């Protein structure tokens, strides 16, 4: 049955083309989490590149802040059907981070891992060439803890569950290892424009 007078969400005509299939426009920034907000003191925070690298590289928060950053204005789509346009982030590209390590030839895939045990997997070639960054500012302010602060991964061209909040590192792998949601019915790749929401899509 249709609920009388319930209009639900919108796909406004002026931005319709920017909304992937099945998505609705949101103007706020919904908080979606699989667990409580971790609180990591910055003097204990580190970020590591490990796995199929010549030798792992670790940054402290102070060291990470010294890396060159860029501003990114991107559209973000969450698999729960909201899309937010023109989100402004500031962070370090994965390309910049990769300058500090020597990848082994069989490094093809990446597992991003976070405080609290969350993981997600992405092909390495979809994290490079400016396609992904570690963000620590949103909308010109420090990234709030409930949105993934102090730092999160942002991969705008994939569903937002791939943009791991509270990220602590990237592990380079030979095989594509399903992460937290990918191992429980979500699509291993997650392209919103192909509506790759669930495995089997």
């Amino acid at each position, binding site marked *: 049955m249709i609920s009388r007078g319930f209009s639900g969400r919108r796909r406004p005509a002026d931005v319709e083309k920017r909304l992937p299939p099945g998505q609705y426009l949101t103007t706020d920034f919904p908080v*979606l989490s699989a667990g409580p907000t971790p609180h990591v003191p910055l003097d204990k925070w580190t970020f590591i590149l490990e796995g199929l690298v010549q030798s792992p590289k670790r940054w402290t928060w102070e060291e990470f802040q010294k890396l060159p950053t860029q501003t990114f204005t991107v559209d973000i789509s969450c698999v729960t059907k909201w899309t937010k346009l023109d989100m402004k982030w500031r962070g370090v590209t994965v390309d910049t981070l990769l300058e500090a390590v020597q990848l082994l030839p069989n490094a093809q895939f990446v597992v991003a891992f976070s405080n609290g045990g969350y993981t997600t997997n992405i092909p390495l070639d979809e994290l490079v060439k400016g396609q992904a960054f570690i963000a620590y500012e949103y909308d010109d302010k420090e990234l709030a803890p*409930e949105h993934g602060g102090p730092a999160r991964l942002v991969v705008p061209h994939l569903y937002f*569950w791939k943009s791991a909040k509270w990220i602590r590192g990237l592990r380079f792998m030979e095989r594509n290892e399903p992460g937290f949601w990918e191992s*429980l*019915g979500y699509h291993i790749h997650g392209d919103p424009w192909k509506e790759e929401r669930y495995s089997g899509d």
Partner: protein
Amino acid sequence: MHRKDADINTSLMLDGNAIAGELQQIFGRDLTMAMTRCGRCSADTRLGALMAFVRAPGVVLRCPACGTVIIRIVETPGQYYVDARGAVFMRLDRDARRLAHQ
């Protein structure tokens, strides 16, 4: 679990009662009275009292004592996925009338 912060993520946190309907759809009976034992800290908690994060791509039920994931549930258009590896067991009474006198 003592919690000093009051961020929005915490205030959005519910408990197993919130997914009683979904669980009954999947399993054909109420599961909120199921006793679960945490695989990490061994705390025994009724499923209705597990911390529930429901505003995510799926539902995550966590141990209120140590925060570890006990159960995860995803609903896709055609299937339900349930991962209960975080629980040592789930224990349900066979006789519904016995529940009344606990």
